[in-house]
């Protein structure tokens, strides 16, 4: 078990000039065989391992990561956490996650800085209003805290938004989920890694999966850059690279991996103390504890694994930011980057068994996976351990694309008259 982190441990270690801290996780060589292997050392993968060990006593397991843990979308997203989704299935899934977030720092004894500063979604046209109200009503009846704010209330809640009726797409109102907020993305990966490692899970970095060995229609192990590892259960949590793994076993997934970009400004003193999202004009913004404005841009329409997107997407996003926050015009972009997001046709994830025994997929989170990390890990662990989905992820199986029972979270398409 790990030493407990606290203010006292900090003081204690100060006297030895912090030279006696233990490793947050070991750096083991892979064993010959594991009871289960998780492919992908991102937040979802590490969380899956953590809950497999914690709730299902599967401790002889490994997480294999081709790079460094948390280096994919976990470390590249805008850290927005909310659960105000439209459909019952989604609401159940994301609120399950949100409930875990609320106690995660304590559970992991690692401060993931979950900050419930609220997430506000703005409406800019009449169909937006209908869609967001519909969502708010659904949330309320699903016991998810969500309130509708009129334009004045929006202004009151976040005074720096330009709510003038004269702008191109005036703010007609918005929904607010107060329990929603942000967290420190790296800490989530590190905290779960520390927790899992403490229970004996092997976290193996710089270990790329090259192939999956099958015997008939069940899995036997994975070929990696560190050799063959035997196992009967494989959980694939490879986000943008899910299809790459799937292609190893000739499975086609309903996924496209596209570039998603984000950027931060230079750090400034507190200026916006909540998260504001606007789908219609596409501007998401919050401010990190460090003081940087964290801004999410959109995806490009083409498949790419380069972690680079096109400049027009960034320009379009900042255009929208200045439309809603003209005071940010003199702020400066410090850093921009891209991630690879695996997107499902219905904008909902897949947490599912496959027709191959012992092979499970957790993917398709698109642009919104970070918020689900704890819930996704918990439910995927359950699915792997019991070879059966939990009721909360039953609807998110692969077969829905065959039967047509999609969980379409796009909401209304173009407003039409």
């Amino acid at each position, binding site marked *: 078990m790990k030493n407990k982190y606290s203010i006292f441990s900090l003081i204690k270690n100060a006297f030895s000039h912090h030279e006696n801290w233990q490793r947050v996780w070991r750096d083991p060589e892979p064993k010959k065989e594991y009871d289960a292997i998780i492919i992908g050392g991102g937040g979802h993968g590490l969380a899956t391992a953590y809950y497999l060990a914690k709730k299902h006593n599967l401790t002889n397991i490994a997480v294999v990561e081709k*790079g460094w843990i948390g280096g994919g979308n976990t470390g590249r997203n805008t850290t927005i956490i909310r659960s105000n989704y439209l459909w019952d299935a989604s609401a159940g899934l994301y609120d399950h996650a949100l409930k875990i977030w609320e106690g995660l720092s304590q559970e992991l004894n690692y401060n993931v800085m979950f900050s419930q500063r609220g997430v506000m979604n703005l409406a800019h046209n009449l169909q937006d209003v209908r869609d967001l109200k519909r969502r708010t009503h659904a949330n309320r009846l699903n016991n998810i805290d969500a309130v509708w704010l009129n334009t004045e209330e929006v202004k009151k809640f976040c005074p720096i938004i330009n709510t003038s009726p004269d702008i191109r797409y005036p703010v007609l109102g918005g929904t607010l989920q107060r329990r929603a907020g942000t967290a420190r993305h790296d800490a989530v990966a590190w905290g779960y890694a520390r927790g899992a490692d403490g229970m004996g899970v092997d976290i193996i970095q710089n270990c790329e999966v090259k192939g999956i060995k099958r015997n008939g229609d069940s899995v036997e192990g994975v070929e990696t850059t560190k050799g063959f590892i035997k196992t009967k259960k494989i959980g694939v949590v490879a986000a943008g690279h899910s299809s790459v793994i799937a292609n190893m076993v000739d499975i086609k997934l309903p996924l496209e991996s596209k570039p998603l970009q984000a950027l931060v400004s*230079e*750090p*400034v003193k507190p200026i916006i103390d909540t998260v504001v999202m606007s789908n219609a004009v596409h501007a998401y913004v919050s401010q990190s504890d460090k003081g940087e404005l964290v801004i999410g841009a959109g995806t490009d329409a083409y498949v790419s694994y380069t972690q680079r997107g096109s400049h027009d997407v960034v320009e379009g996003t900042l255009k929208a930011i200045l439309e809603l926050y003209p005071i940010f015009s003199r702020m400066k972009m410090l850093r921009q980057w891209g991630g690879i997001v695996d997107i499902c046709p219905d904008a909902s994830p897949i947490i599912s068994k496959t027709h191959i025994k012992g092979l499970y997929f957790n993917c398709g989170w698109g642009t919104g996976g970070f918020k689900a990390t704890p819930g996704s890990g918990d439910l995927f662990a359950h699915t792997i351990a019991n070879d059966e989905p939990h009721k909360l992820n039953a609807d998110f199986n692969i077969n829905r694309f065959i039967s047509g029972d999609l969980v379409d979270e796009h909401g209304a398409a173009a407003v039409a008259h």
Partner: protein
Amino acid sequence: MSKNLRITNSKFIDQTSRISFKFDGKTLYGFKGDTLASALLANDIHLVGRSFKYHRPRGIMTCGSEEPNAIVQLGNDSSMTEPNTRATEIELYEGLEASSQNCWPSVNFDIGAINNFFSPFIPAAFYYKTFMWPASFWEKYEYFIRKSAGLGKSPTKPDKDIYDHKYLHCDVLIIGGGISGIIAAKTAAQNNLNTVLLDDKNNLGGTTLFQNNECFKINNTYSSEWLKKEIESLNSFKNLTIKTRTTLAAYHSYNYLLARENLTDHLSLIEKKDKIRQRLWKIRAKKVIIATGAMERPLIFNNNDRPGVILSSSIKKYIDYYGVKCGQKISLFTNNDTTYETAISLNKSGVTINSVIDIRDKSNSSIVKEAEKLGIKVHWKHTVVNTNGYKRISSIELMKLSDDGAGVVGNKSKEECDCLGISGGWTPRVHLFTQSGGKLKFRDKDNIFLPDKSESEQISIGSCNGDFELDDIIKNSNKSIKEFLNLNSSDYENLEINCSKETDKKNIWLLPSNKPLGKTKPFLDFQNDSTAKDVKLALREGFKSIEHVKRYTTTGMGTDQGKLSNMHALGIIAETAGVKMGELGTTTFRPPYTPLTFGTIVGRNVGEFFDITRRTPIHDWHVEKKAEFENVGQWKRAWYYPINNESMHEAVQREAKAARDSAGILDASTLGKIDIQGSDASEFLNRVYTNAWSKLEIGKCRYGLMLNEDGMVYDDGVTTRLDENHYIMTTTTGGASNVLSKLEDYLQTEWPELDVYLTSVTDNYATVSICGPNSKKILSRVIPDLDLSDKEFSHMSFKNALIDNIKCRVMRISFTGEHSYEINIQSSYGKSLWEKCFEAGKEFNITPYGTETMHLLRAEKGFIITGQDTDGTITPVDLQMDWIISKKKYDFIGKRSLYRSDTIREDRKQLVGLVTDDPKEVLEEGAQIVSEANKKPIEMVGHVTSSYFSPNLNKSIALAVLKNGKKLKGQKMFVPMKNKTINVTITDTVFLDKENKRLNA
């Protein structure tokens, strides 16, 4: 009292034009050509800011974009102030006001400095390990963390400045106007290539511009003299564009580059007015030559962060270029030759140099000999182990290095000084190269990362390519330029170059001290306060990857993006982890190279130009009539027409009533219109719509429903057969462009065999829709010679007509359920036609109505609006429109999906009507529906898609999608609102005139 440290012989500073400015409220003076930094130094001000975490006093450390410390708030006007600007880059202008950041109450006395005393308890990433108890307290902890974090302050009012964009296409783009960039520019220009040369400074020449040292000569003149002539010669080329004050921000794939040109930041407040502040150049270059030079490295030793500790080459620039002495008793600390150039320059200007502390055992280069000749004292094989002084360095402590360089030996000696120049060697600026996707290689000789291979059409030349000696720079640059541009010769073949060559090299990433590491503060990232200790802590805790160490310690994540700190961080990681730096690799350099103003990225696409506004030909009329407008996609549509300050509700009720009682008129010009011609036009329509088209007679209209391939309703509209092979299709306003490209897609890729041509004519026609019992009378006055009898002109048919000799198409179709006509006329006559109809309708009280009333009227009749009553999850069957799905047709877009196991389910959500028990109670659109009032948890069985108070039925009506709704007609349901539950009854979707009497009235 601050003393003047200005010497008089600088050619680059106009000492006749004095400029006054304010720093921290104090009025000071500088000269034209100064930067804020050089002006402050001239006033003997070093302390300019406080560090991010420990709030330690910090001073100016460099003379360029890599500055980590001298970050100031520029201006104090709430709309024009700018946070986190680098004093080393701000050109001085009359009226400039700047202030220190991240300190309170003042930079001289900063409460936050208390953190410095707590520093033992707050090592790297301490915050992950605490603030967890009690859970509910995080919000409070976070409040204080946030308050103490951040650097400058955001403006609080909108920016008044203007920004602009320009596209630029060239044969050769050269980034950097130093000696190699200038050689490249001239060579390219001489060969008639369309050439562009960028430099971020206000003049060309780089550091050679002020290199007046005997040891560096070209053709027997100072290298500076030689270069000046070259620069002058550039003016003669018409095909060469030179942009100074222009920083290359981002290098994207396919040689697409973004550069920021600074147009007014250096001008006085008056001169700035109404000019474009910054312009973003979007450059597409056939070939790119990177000549961005190198950055000097600091040295990492105990307390290396005090104000007065400055990079040695910056001290040289301050004295040689700005004519400013950084101190009066200066010590220099180095591991390489370039510091001796600084020593010689200082010596020439009469500045006292205590000594040069050099970690090397010796050096035999000519420049070192020259320095020693001038009597400059050198401590070979020594290191600085500590510095003293709080707000300004006052002395240094030095000791002899052990032979292996791992420790120090002998006695400590002290040297009084007011400035310490440090130099840890040089780092090529490879940022742009890596941004473009280029891979780096490591050179052990001098521990640098160099450009290796690159995919794109580009080369790096000069010191950004690892050439540091004058002769190598010129010879190698010339060679690679010729190869890159395929040239046989250039002007730079046989130059006579004399320069001092560095003979001895030695590098120690973390210099040893007489104290244990734990008791020292050797800073790596000066802005984020991360030390060598922090990096070692991260490694100890198992953070192996560079990216992990960077994120865990925040090294290199400040506003300078680690320009100074990265190499040493890597060095220390490699050393501690015992791996070769080459194998370790680097962290990725992400764009932009230096922070880029949001306003610049957005350009003039703000306010009016944030997004396109589309207007109908009749728009002005609506404006004159004080209509309220609704945004529909990019269109402005008249929403309703309030008269003598009616509320929206009142206006809509009036309009809706008038339309059914007598006549209403609607501007329907925004509907998408696609002209379809070709011998397979009918077959094409059969494939794209759910219903059958072959049998539609010429002159008749038909409503069509278009699906996605997944079977969900996508778009709808009326299509008219104008001729045997000629149709005109209408689409929804929002769907118009998507429908056209979707149809083009099918034609070009799936059905190329079809002889069909699609042409958008949306903008070609204005569409005036007249409805109501009197519409026929009105139309007969507008087009007297058109036979409007039901026999001649029945519902769902069309006629060509002439109005005042202008061709137009008249359709008798209805979206309101009323007898109504749509007149399509070429847009130029739309407004006139509208007015004509309005005139003709006056005696029938013809009433203009907007989109809101249109919605209401069609809802009374149970007509759907795709996108409102459908949401991409609704099939035609769900809409109870089975009648529109042709059973005969073999196939159409989306057909197969209608027969999947889930889409054939009987209990899907289906479109129904709702009436409230209380007819006055209007449901909220989006409200959810449940089957039992007080059951918990409540299962939601559907939601309200459209809801209005109908003035014609004098009751509230609504459309909804409801689970199994088809079968539930007549049943009660409940709509639970926040504070009440509304009882509703499920009805048919048609509320008014089920028998369609009015259509033919």
